[in-house]
């Protein structure tokens, strides 16, 4: 965690002479998002232009309740503290602030800062910090700390849980998880592949520090093994089926003793996605294969993880109800030395989530879920009920 850095950044941002859109005298206001007042029409002559720098701040928060029969094996939660055995808990979840600033017509800065409730107080983390130059739709280049763009969920939904349909992320990409490197520190180029016409082929290519000393974290302060990780993603979002997205990614890194793992291993992560981004229905499915190869000696291990989620915004009752279902599966070979260290191995999973989201306000939702999962065939089945209210302000 990078508490001190995040506090400094936050203070700098708040002290900066920002110009909130709601306070500008611009002739036209941004789409009124939560908590922002709308400027009166015609407040200034219409020749006035965008002001730089501008800053847009948005907050997210969630409050959770859970009841499980095997709390020590709880599924899909990266936060909170629960004793083993049957348990029920209220959990404050995360308080998140997003900062989106335009520095010029083609340069922007974005930051996401979270405060997470833990057993010993709150942890402050700079989740994302990105400066980007947009040359054209075909080429945008940025630097900073990202949510690694190798899985759709990881870049579509962030720490503001109001954005996503379900209470938690799929376990394969949960925050704090070790299966997939959720964060990435480095450089990223992205854009539309020229000449792909109505197929709308997008690319993303990045190079960065890779996993940190704790493989759940990126190398925030530097590369611990001086071997850069790289990634490449390509996906299509056809103009003739614009709510569909299909594609895949490759991620390459080298991990070893500096990551707290005995031996040196090459890590290849291959992913695939098929997504329908609407609400009637919403469909998200992703697959990842994580291959670890012992360098300099024979030995290869492949772990697989996938999930499929389907949801549908019901047309009745002012379209406020959205039931959903998700199946998740993670299989990790018990001999994989990276995911099965002597203590605290990464667990396998087969589980279902059935729930409903109720949007009781345009900017707040209540989600209720039932989960049924098992870590392995010889392990007990885990049942749980989860409730969350998530909001944006």
């Amino acid at each position, binding site marked *: 965690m990078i508490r001190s850095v995040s506090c400094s950044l936050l203070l700098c941002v708040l002290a900066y002479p920002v110009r909130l859109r709601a306070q500008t005298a611009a002739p036209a206001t941004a789409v009124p998002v939560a908590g922002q007042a709308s400027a009166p029409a015609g407040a200034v002559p219409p020749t006035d232009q965008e002001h730089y720098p*501008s800053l847009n701040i948005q907050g997210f928060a969630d409050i959770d309740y859970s009841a499980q029969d095997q709390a020590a094996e709880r599924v899909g939660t990266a936060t909170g503290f629960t004793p083993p055995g049957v348990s029920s808990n209220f959990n404050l979840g995360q308080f998140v602030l997003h900062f989106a600033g335009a520095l010029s017509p083609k340069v922007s800065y974005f930051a996401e800062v979270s405060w997470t409730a833990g057993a010993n107080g709150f942890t402050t983390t700079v989740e994302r910090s990105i400066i*980007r130059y947009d040359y054209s739709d075909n080429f945008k280049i940025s630097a900073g700390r990202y949510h690694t763009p190798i899985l759709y969920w990881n870049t579509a939904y962030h720490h503001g849980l109001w954005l996503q349909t379900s209470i938690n992320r799929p376990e394969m990409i949960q925050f704090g998880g070790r299966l997939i490197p959720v964060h990435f520190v480095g450089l990223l180029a992205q854009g539309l592949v020229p000449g792909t016409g109505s197929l709308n082929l997008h690319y993303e290519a990045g190079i960065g520090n890779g996993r940190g000393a704790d493989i759940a974290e990126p190398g925030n302060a530097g590369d611990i093994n001086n071997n850069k990780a790289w990634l490449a993603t390509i996906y299509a979002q056809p103009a003739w089926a614009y709510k569909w997205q299909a594609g895949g990614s490759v991620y390459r890194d080298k991990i070893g003793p500096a990551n707290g793992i005995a031996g040196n291993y090459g890590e290849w992560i291959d992913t695939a996605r098929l997504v329908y981004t609407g609400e009637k229905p919403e469909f998200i499915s992703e697959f990842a294969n994580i291959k670890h190869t012992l360098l300099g000696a024979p030995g290869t291990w492949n772990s697989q993880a996938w999930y499929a989620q389907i949801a549908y915004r019901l*047309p009745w009752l002012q379209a406020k109800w959205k039931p959903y279902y998700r199946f998740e*599966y993670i299989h990790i070979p018990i001999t994989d030395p990276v995911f099965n260290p002597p203590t605290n191995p990464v667990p396998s999973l087969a589980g279902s989530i059935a729930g409903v989201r109720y949007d009781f306000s345009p900017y707040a939702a209540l989600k209720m879920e039932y989960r049924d999962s*098992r870590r392995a065939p010889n392990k007990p089945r885990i049942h749980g009920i989860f409730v969350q209210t998530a909001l944006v302000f």
Partner: protein
Amino acid sequence: MDRHSTLLLKTLARWGGVGLALIVLAAAVEPKPRAQRSTPVAILVNPATRVSNLSLAELREIMLGNRQFWPDHQPIVLLLRAPVAPERTAVLHIIYQMSEAEFRQYWIAKIFRDETATAPKVVYSASMASELVVAIPGSIAFLEADEVQPGPKVLTIDGKKPGEKGYPLQ
């Protein structure tokens, strides 16, 4: 079949059917789209913009914020009528295919995914939209065709002018 696969199939069978049945039921009773409008919606751009025609798919990409630059690399500035304006309702229905709530959520998510630094600008009247689209380079707006004032360039969509047979924003 190994134990993991057996477990997977059992769990899928247990819950998958329930979810699927609910979704199929909801889709079956989904209200049908509304009848076509009588007044066409005109798409206006800044007169200096070197584009005269867009396909409906290209227009959708621009309105969704997926295309953020004109071909000469000029940033696109999106001007949207405030809620309740009939042309906004039409654009949400025909182009975005979203409800007002979905539209708000879409742009909140778009900005905070860092896919764009700025949200569309909201304009509160037809005259304001016409004035701003002339004043702001790279801007694009939409109005009911009979409210268009002299100054902005009116685009053809799929090669059709507003009011012509086959114009998609009818």
